[in-house]
């Protein structure tokens, strides 16, 4: 059996790993299941390092946790963020058969594992004599160099195949930023961003069009989605505005003329200046 420290580490980490593995089975969301796998992988790496295989442990984290699971998470997040599994039985008796097979497998595993006895490990000291990575490199690049090359070729072939299968021949010239800008100008489209809705109008809201300098509503300032849905609110028209001023005037008759007076005042000196 292992040394004291290693045993303590194992009994701390292993139950957590089992819990996380169960979490993988019972998690409702795919992202939670992925998190559980990541946790199991990192704990596994900790156990590898504890068993004098630091290279294997660290590479497990770099390659599987850092790259492979990250890509999984990437795809899950982008494709099925909120997708949950359907619980409808498509094949009759599938659930019953599943339980049966699972129980059978469990029985076999328990039967085998309880009878296993581990003899004392041999050769660890010689294998790790010149540090673990060097020992590993000596074996990989002498006895197993052919197998390593074959695996390398296999991986490169797979990568090339993925590239070839997803490659799309370009039929038309590439449309870059410059071409798009040119097309915009030639098509007579607006070169600047569209005006913001409502900001220059009487109200400040998404569904109210902005007003141009002549007081006319600018249709394009309201989001196309709102326009298509018919949720656009009309801009305050001239009649409405007049009504509004009339209402104001009638409610505050004495302040009306006083408020109008200062509007004239600044215009008067300007005119006199022009006469000079």
């Amino acid at each position, binding site marked *: 059996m292992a040394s004291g420290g290693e045993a303590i580490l194992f009994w701390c980490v292993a139950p957590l790993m089992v819990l996380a593995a169960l979490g993988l089975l019972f998690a409702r*969301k795919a*992202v*939670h299941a992925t*998190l559980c796998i*990541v946790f199991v992988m*990192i704990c596994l*790496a900790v156990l590898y390092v504890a068993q004098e295989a*630091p*290279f294997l442990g*660290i*590479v497990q*984290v*770099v390659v599987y*946790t*850092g*790259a492979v699971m*990250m*890509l999984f*998470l*990437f795809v899950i*997040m*982008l494709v099925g*963020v909120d997708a949950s599994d359907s619980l409808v039985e498509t094949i009759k008796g599938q659930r019953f058969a599943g339980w049966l097979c699972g129980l059978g497998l469990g029985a076999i595993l328990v039967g085998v594992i309880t009878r296993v006895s581990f003899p004392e490990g041999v050769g660890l000291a010689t294998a790790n004599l010149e*540090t*673990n*990575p*060097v020992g590993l490199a000596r074996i990989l690049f002498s006895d197993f160099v052919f197998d390593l090359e074959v695996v390398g070729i296999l991986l490169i072939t797979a990568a090339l195949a993925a590239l070839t299968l997803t490659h799309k021949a370009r039929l038309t010239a590439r449309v870059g930023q410059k071409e798009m800008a*040119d097309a915009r*100008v*030639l098509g007579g489209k607006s070169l600047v961003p569209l005006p913001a809705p409502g900001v220059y109008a009487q109200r400040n809201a998404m569904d109210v069009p902005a007003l141009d300098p002549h007081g006319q509503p600018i249709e394009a300032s309201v989001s196309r989605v709102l326009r298509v849905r018919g949720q656009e609110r009309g801009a305050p028209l001239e009649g409405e505005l007049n009504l509004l001023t009339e209402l104001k005037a009638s409610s505050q008759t004495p302040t009306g003329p006083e408020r109008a007076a200062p509007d004239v005042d600044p215009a008067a000196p300007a005119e006199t200046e022009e006469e000079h």
Partner: protein
Amino acid sequence: MVDFSNDTFWTYLIKAVLIIVFLLTSVLLAIWFERKVVARMQVRPGPNVHGPFGLLQSLADAMKLLLKEDITVKAADKFVYLIAPMIAVFCSLLTFAVIPFGPQVRIPFTDFTTPAQLTDFPVAVLYILACASVGVYGIILGGWASGSTYPLLGAVRSTAQVISYELAMGLSLVSVFIVVGSMSTGAIVDGQTDYWLILPLFPAFLIYVISMVGETNRLPFDLPEAEGELVSGYMTEYSSMKFAWFFLAEYINMINVSAVATTLFLGGWRAPFPISAINDGMFNEGWWPVLWFLVKMWLFMFLFVWIRGTLLRLRYDQFMRFGWKVLIPFALGWIVCVSVIRGLREFHDVNLQTVGVVIFGVALVVIVVLRFLPEKPPPAPAELPGSGADGVFDPFAAGYPVPPMPGQKLPPSPRAERRARAAIGAGAPSPTAPSSTTGKDDDDE
């Protein structure tokens, strides 16, 4: 390898606590440093109110972040939303475990000597890469758990960015492994006794510096939190302490990559050349090396700030193209060169000078050949917009104003001609013109 035989459980614990204290205070200092240096570059004073030189400003900011209301958005996935910043900070704290601050040091007032390093093992540099790659989970989970669009986009960008730049970073480190023959940080610093690795491995150093900026999401590569596009990316929905943790992780990561660059390429704790020769390497022993290490590390921090103050943010597709089509192929080619040279020296007993002379000769031949190759003809001017049928530049080609491209010349403006004629015609009789101008006009006529 470094000798840790004196260390006990208590020494490890004290070192670990010291490292955490060092990192947290360095972050406070780094925020102040960055704001102050960027301010100087933009000709303004920067923080200067609280404490001497404004040193307490970042402490005040930290307190503000701690005391603010902690908002958990309604659409958030509560558990993941909570652990994401924790993952980011936890992983960023791990790296410094294998960074050597110095050689064996004697604790003052005792006879106890211990390496100025928490631990070291044969795959220490890979361990650093592993910590970085797990740290990205903090960012991506934070972006996803916020349950909102901008954080998700920021998280996706960040993942793509870190994965692709980590490849280039790993490849640049491989050449260090090949030259030193070890992946332990202690052995790598030992391998730089004669010369620092930045000299023979300068291309690898360049790749590392570029990819370390990409890895830490800093300008010009801060696309995951691009303010103009994504509000602030994966951190948008975070506030108070959780936001502070992301902030802390980002700055600790900057310190981490600076320390790794120092250790791998700038000789770690070794004194720079003229100082290292004084009195039989007196400055390479005792507590001096900690000073050299910190100076080099802060030089890299300055580089980060300098880059931030100088460069603009890249567009996302340019950034990805640069990573995959420039950095990674270049790094692969460099590894092939390094392994060929290393293999020649290992198995064929060729000394370094011969290799150097051969490389120099090949480079010379290539340069000479390139010099005598015919130059590529410049692109035909007919393709440029605005060139009329007779080859004269038409400033209103296709009905809209176009600027002249290089090689094209703007024709003299008709308005300038009219103005000149008007000035001559109305020169003498103009009553408003100053007398000196009129006198000059009279002379001309």
